[in-house]
C-alpha cells in the first residue's frame, strides 16, 4: 500500500507521468517534495486544486493522506 498521486491535465506533462506512487502518510510539505520541482512550482498557484480520497480540499495545506489514499492534483480546467 502507498499513496497514489494523480497528475491531471497539463500537470501530467510536467510530471512526466500520469501518476506516481509514494510512501504514506503524506502531508502538504511531503507532497511538495514528492512531486518534483516542475509540478511543485505549479502548486504555488492557488488555482491548482487538490482532492484526497475523492474529496476536494478546501485548505490544501491541511492535506493528510494515508496509505491507500489517492491524491489528485487538478489544474485550472478548460471544458465545454
Amino acid at each position, binding site marked *: 500500500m502507498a499513496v497514489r498521486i*494523480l497528475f491531471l491535465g497539463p500537470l501530467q506533462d510536467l510530471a512526466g507521468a500520469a501518476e506516481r506512487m509514494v510512501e504514506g502518510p503524506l502531508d502538504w510539505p511531503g507532497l511538495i517534495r514528492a512531486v518534483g520541482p516542475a509540478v511543485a512550482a505549479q502548486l504555488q498557484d492557488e488555482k491548482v486544486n487538490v482532492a484526497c480520497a*475523492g474529496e476536494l480540499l478546501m485548505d490544501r495545506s491541511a492535506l493528510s493522506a494515508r496509505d491507500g489514499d489517492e491524491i489528485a492534483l487538478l*489544474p*485550472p480546467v*478548460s*471544458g465545454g
Partner: protein
Amino acid sequence: MIDARLLEKGFSAGQALAHFARANPDSGGIASFVGKVRPDGDVKALHLTHYPPLTLPGMEELARKAMERFALEGILAWHRIGFLRPGAPIVLVAAAARHRRDSLAAVDFTMDHLKSAAWFWKREKRDDGWHWIAPRGQDHADLARWD
C-alpha cells in the same frame, strides 16, 4: 428530471433533444446549446480528460443548482470525454421550463459553469503535436456574471 452524462462515444444532439422533449411533455419551452469541436485551421483531434471521482458528481450538482435557480421542469447536461474529431459535438445542455426566459438563462448558466468550473481538461492535436488548451479569461468573466 436531471439527465447528466459523461459520454465516451459520439452522440446525436437532435436525437437527444427529441428524447428530452418527450420526457418533459408539460413544459412550455425547451432551450438548448450544443458545442462542437471547431473545424479550425490545422486541428486534427481533441482529447478530453476528466477526474472520475469529481466530474460527474460535479455535473449533477450543477444541474441541481440550475433546477432550483431557474424553476426548471428538466435539465440535460451531456459532456464528451476521450478523443473527438473536428465537427463532433462536445457538449449538449437543454433546459425545459414553463417560461422561455428561464429555460434560456438556465442553458447560459450551465454552459458557463461547464466551461470553467467543471473538471475537464482539453488538449488538441495540431500538425506539430498535442497542445493543452488554457482556460480563457472570457470564460471566467462569463462565469462571474452569476455570482
